């Protein structure tokens, strides 16, 4: 039995009301959407807010529709709705695929895409009961002074573990944030920062209201793949997303790849353009791209499995997604 710490539950019906409540309770409050990340974390005493501000009843945060040249996805849409939505499936099949492979069915019915963007980073030494963590000695991310992965005190290297952000990055998506002073919009790659303790630029008072994907990106070929222990339910040990603009004659116009579940933020793979642009995505090119990805990924011992093995799986999974691009 895992009890929650006591809190008051607020169900605002608008963004303005929600950010107003957050302004009022400040550090004592947190937002909750599907609760599939926050509630287990609270049961582990990783967070103990005394006020929860629920976002599921805020109607402005729902809806998937075309708007001003973008596909606009409200942040409170569940992963099940995103995965099953005909327009998402048609325009951005890799996103439908990624959303449909998060956790298991019940979690996708509750978990939201906004919560997926704001998912707390994960680590073997962190996602444990407070009894477990206390027995070992608390770590830097919560209540302690050293990181058990790097054995120094300076930085937390817990893994960004969400499946949809890598795909959204390859599609050039934007994130809209609303706070008491209005809205701002940033490209999703700027949303994440390399700090395992708190890995986004969202200020605590801000709400992620929507994700916008330019409709122009729908013409790109897209693919996604995920490595995990049990295919039915587990968090990723590695997620790879790619998208490419390939001409009718097979010439690559542009290509990009993103990997995650290694470090504190999703990593955009670099150095692919000079290998691929102007060429054809054949077996040799796929090998070179996979090798280039391997060179730049150095996972640490932050998740349950061996880091060397995870690193060795990077080129394997990059090859898999690139093969999918070739045949789609």
């Amino acid at each position, binding site marked *: 039995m*895992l009890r929650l710490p006591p809190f008051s*539950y607020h169900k605002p019906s608008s963004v303005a009301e929600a950010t107003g409540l957050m302004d009022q309770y400040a550090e004592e409050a947190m937002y909750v959407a599907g*609760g599939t990340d926050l509630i287990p974390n609270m049961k582990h005493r990783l967070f103990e807010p005394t006020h929860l501000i629920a976002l599921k009843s805020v109607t402005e945060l729902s809806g998937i529709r075309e708007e001003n040249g973008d596909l606009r996805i409200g942040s409170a849409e569940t992963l099940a709705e995103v995965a099953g939505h005909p327009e998402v499936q048609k325009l951005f099949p890799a996103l439908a695929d990624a959303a449909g492979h998060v956790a*298991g069915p019940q979690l996708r*019915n509750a978990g939201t895409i906004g919560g997926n963007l704001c998912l707390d980073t994960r680590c073997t030494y962190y996602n444990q009961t407070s009894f477990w963590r206390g027995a070992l000695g608390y770590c830097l991310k919560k209540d302690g002074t050293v990181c058990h992965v790097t054995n120094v005190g300076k930085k937390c290297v817990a893994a960004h573990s969400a499946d949809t952000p890598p795909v959204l990055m390859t599609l050039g998506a934007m994130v809209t944030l609303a706070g008491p002073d209005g809205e701002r919009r940033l490209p999703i790659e700027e949303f994440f920062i390399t700090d395992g303790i708190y890995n986004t630029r969202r200020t605590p008072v801000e709400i992620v209201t929507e994700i916008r994907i330019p409709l122009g990106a729908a013409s790109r070929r897209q693919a996604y793949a995920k490595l995990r222990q049990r295919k039915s339910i587990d968090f990723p040990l590695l997620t790879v997303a790619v998208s490419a603009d390939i001409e009718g004659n097979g010439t690559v116009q542009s290509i990009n790849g993103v990997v995650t579940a290694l470090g504190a933020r999703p990593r955009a793979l670099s150095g692919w353009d000079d290998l691929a642009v102007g060429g054809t995505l054949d077996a040799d090119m796929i090998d070179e791209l996979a090798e280039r990805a391997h060179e730049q990924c150095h996972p640490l011992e932050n998740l349950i499995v061996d880091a060397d093995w995870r690193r060795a799986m990077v080129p394997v999974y990059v090859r898999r997604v690139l093969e999918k691009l070739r045949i789609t």
Partner: protein
Amino acid sequence: MPAVTQIVRLTVNGDLREVGVPMHFTLLEALRYGLGLTGSKQGCDKGDCGACTVILDGRPTLSCITPVFEAEGHAIVTVEGLADVEGPHPLQDAFDLHGAAQCGFCTPGILCSAAVLLEKTTSPSRTEIKEALSGNLCRCTGYSKIYDAVASAGQRLQVEAQLGESGR
């Protein structure tokens, strides 16, 4: 912070129930310790196993990580609500006939996930059954008998629909 106790109004198995609970209770705690509906099981209590699965607005949902006040205003069906006055749900009969439960701890959650699947289709493929039950762990049966039971309950529902009678 002292726990705040409040009255929550829950629509459970078609009945509107009022129960006083601390505000930080989960739906599972309210069902089990507030309403005495102990069919939904408290397994991992953190979203991993599916033993606490209930049907919220027609969708399988984990009650152990659902704040109880989030469930207010929504229709909740628990394993206690699957049978009706005429008898057990066809799934329950099928689990009995196929020996699909051993210790039985996973069974209420699996019945809820499977009931939602059979609402959508009475002739699910083996893959569809596996996918629908992929968030429900069973440590005893090895799943084969569970999949068989779900498929056969689907067949019975089809026959009943063809005959246009309940058949129970």
